């Protein structure tokens, strides 16, 4: 497979930020007195953190060597994501963070937060109760809860998040979302300008550096991408569908078998992070609540979005001219286990070729994954018919 934007200096820099929890950009930012606030996951409005003049950071337990230290706080019914997160936190790999803001995005993550706060300790911690339905009443309620969170955050850090700074932050994040959308479209071209794994690297980088600098780099990267030679060596075009998948190695393993990832429906590091805009008119907290609950692609976490979720994946496949979809799932996740079961039915009914892949948070089954993807690619291509 050709190299996409691998030779781009900008890309190389952005990719270099994704190898450790504490990137060089964070180290540099901290030396200037900057504060880093971990945000798990997309339900937390990063805009509020940016408006406070801080860095909204999406923690990843990248490079985790195990989950032994989680054994005392979690059981075998807890997923490998939270276990590796806890282990990394306990080892001090997130000690550079000045706080952690979490939404109760799933049962595992809310318990990760609780244990992190109580058994390890956090300089600042806050849990935003995120509704499980997306009606207008829930938008109003979430707006109220964001207001309470904002007040708590301001008090703790002795900062003021006024409307002007929040509006500016929303505008910046809106701009980044549009840029990410544009970059995403470049990976969906008949001859994509970048691979799916490269795209994920760029997405991850956007969560571990200052957003204004990221936006500038992204702007230049998009221009470079447009000039880059297209990738013509993929054997099949696929999209991936799943939750908070942040393992670039998994995507590389998939693509190494000729399955070019031309689109996705993923959480913080995929299209669900940028497929919406937040209005800057009127009540800004209400706008954020509406965007997070009603304007983004649905997730299994939000009841009543099943049909929309499936149709959206189908639409992404059509837009990207993908031949198949790979569902990626971290075991012991109720949300995505049932989503996979239901989407399999949808895929059957709509004749969408679909491969279901299980992976632990720390990707270690490269051989098995490659074999399964290789077989899937065969079914998608002429040779497999």
């Amino acid at each position: 497979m050709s190299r996409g934007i691998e030779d781009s200096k900008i890309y190389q820099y952005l990719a270099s930020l994704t190898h450790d929890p504490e990137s060089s950009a964070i180290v540099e930012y901290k030396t200037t007195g900057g504060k880093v606030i971990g945000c798990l996951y997309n339900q937390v409005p990063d805009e509020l953190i940016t408006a406070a003049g801080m860095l909204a950071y999406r923690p990843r337990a990248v490079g985790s060597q195990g989950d032994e230290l989680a054994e005392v706080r979690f059981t075998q019914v807890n997923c490998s994501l939270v276990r590796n997160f806890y282990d990394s936190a306990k080892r001090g790999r997130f000690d550079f963070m000045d706080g952690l803001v979490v939404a109760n995005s799933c049962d595992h993550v809310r318990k990760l937060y609780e244990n992190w706060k109580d058994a390890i300790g956090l300089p600042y911690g806050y849990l935003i109760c995120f509704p499980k339905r997306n009606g207008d009443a829930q938008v109003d309620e979430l707006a109220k809860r964001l207001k309470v969170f904002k007040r708590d955050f301001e008090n703790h850090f002795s900062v003021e998040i006024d409307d002007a700074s929040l509006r500016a932050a929303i505008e910046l994040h809106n701009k980044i979302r549009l840029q990410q959308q544009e970059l995403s479209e470049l990976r969906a071209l008949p001859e994509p300008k970048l691979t799916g794994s490269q795209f994920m690297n760029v997405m991850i980088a956007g969560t571990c550096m200052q957003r204004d600098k990221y936006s500038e780099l992204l702007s230049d990267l998009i221009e470079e991408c447009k000039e880059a030679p297209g990738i013509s060596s993929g054997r099949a075009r696929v999209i991936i569908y799943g939750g908070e998948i942040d393992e670039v190695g998994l995507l590389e393993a998939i693509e190494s078998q000729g399955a070019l990832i031309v689109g996705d429906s993923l959480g913080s590091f995929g299209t669900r992070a940028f497929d919406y805009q937040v209005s800057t008119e009127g009540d800004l907290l209400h706008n954020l609540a509406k965007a997070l609950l009603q304007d983004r692609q649905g997730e299994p976490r939000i009841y009543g979005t099943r049909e929309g979720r499936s149709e959206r994946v189908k639409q992404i496949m059509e837009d990207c001219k993908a031949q198949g979809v790979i569902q990626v799932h971290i075991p012991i996740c109720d949300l995505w286990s049932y989503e996979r079961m239901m989407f399999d039915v949808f895929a059957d009914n709509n004749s969408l070729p679909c491969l279901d892949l299980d992976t632990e948070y720390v990707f270690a089954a490269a051989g098995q994954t490659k074999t399964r993807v290789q077989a899937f690619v065969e079914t998608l291509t002429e040779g497999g018919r």
Partner: protein
Amino acid sequence: MKPGLERFQAYRNVFASGIDQLSQIPDPDDLALLQIDFFKLALKHADRMIDAIENDKPIVSEWYGNACEIYAAMGLTHFCPVDLIIATQPFFDTLDRMHEGNTPADSCGLIQLAVDGVRRGIVPVPTVICGMLEPCDAQSLMHEAWETVPGWENIPSIALDPPYGSTDEDFQYFADELKREIAFLEEHTGAKMDYGELKRICDEMNRLYAAWDDCNHALMQKPCPMHSLQAAEFGWSAALHINWPGDTEATAFFEKMAEVAANRVEKGIGAVPDERIRILWADLNGSWAQGAIGPWLEETYGAVIVNSFAGRTPYTPVDTSCVDSMLFGLARRGINEVPMIRQARGDVGLFLDDVRAMSNDYQIDCVFFPGHKGHKDQGGNIGYLRELCRDMEMPLFSFTSDIFDPFYLPVDQLQHKIAEFFAAQGWKPLK
């Protein structure tokens, strides 16, 4: 035959024959008589459902945290599909069939059973679905999975959004959700809310919960007057699942249960003749613990599982002075007092409070934590629970199971683990 009718008829037959068998005992003791009364309540529930299915009456698919008092006040026949399957699965091949299906094996057996049961047509097709999005992540997906089943695609449904906290503001938010539920039911069933009837029902339920609490005070005494998990099972089922809220016969059942327990305490009669070990089961009873290990514990060790979260009675009387106070009280009960939702919804606080209080109140010797595979939240409570038990100097037996699927941890293996745990405490078998 209409979907679900066969299962409810079988359900009815199981309880009818149970009544017959117990009635033939020449000299039934007080607990056997109580069992008969419980079966009669179950029978009534089955009859109501059979009548509604056969005569095409509106049926509400409910969830016990959604204030079933509301359905009763509107005259709507209601049932919990999950409970139907759990209650009847010992008599059918439901579990085997579930294992043949493709429901996610890493999720709760109860959710798996509910999804599989609806797919296989053993559940009545409801007129409307009032779903609940707690206590676990899988709840929401269970409801969505039902929507993919032929015949269930277009059933009007509402799912109530639970808050995370336990403040009056949180309860008020959920009370507003209950108002939306009432409006939804009026729109889709044609039934009207009768607030006068709701007041009567809430008053009656206040009496029922008070009687259940009286029974629990008897269980706190040594020796425990009832068998392992018996009162918890009666209470959980009769108050929250098979009951038509406001039914005076249900209240009478609870008053009888309290009276039986109190009489036994007065006479010093324990369910176990030589009670040695008192156990708290820190979760719901589930579907197999009472029958599969309760008698074995009692006979082998003189150990009795005195109570569980299912049997805890933290119920605040609902203030029936006005509509708003009733809905507020029902909201508090629905998200903060009924079992499982109470312990699983918010932070670890209520879970620990319950273990601490129940350990003290019931004179507990050790805590069993079944580590249910559906309770991912409780998996994340284990560190807190260990610390608490260490502070209380309370032996803790923690294992992993599916409390709704005995195949996950076979009973003989569990018994072996229990024996090892007891041996480590110096507790020996009676013989």
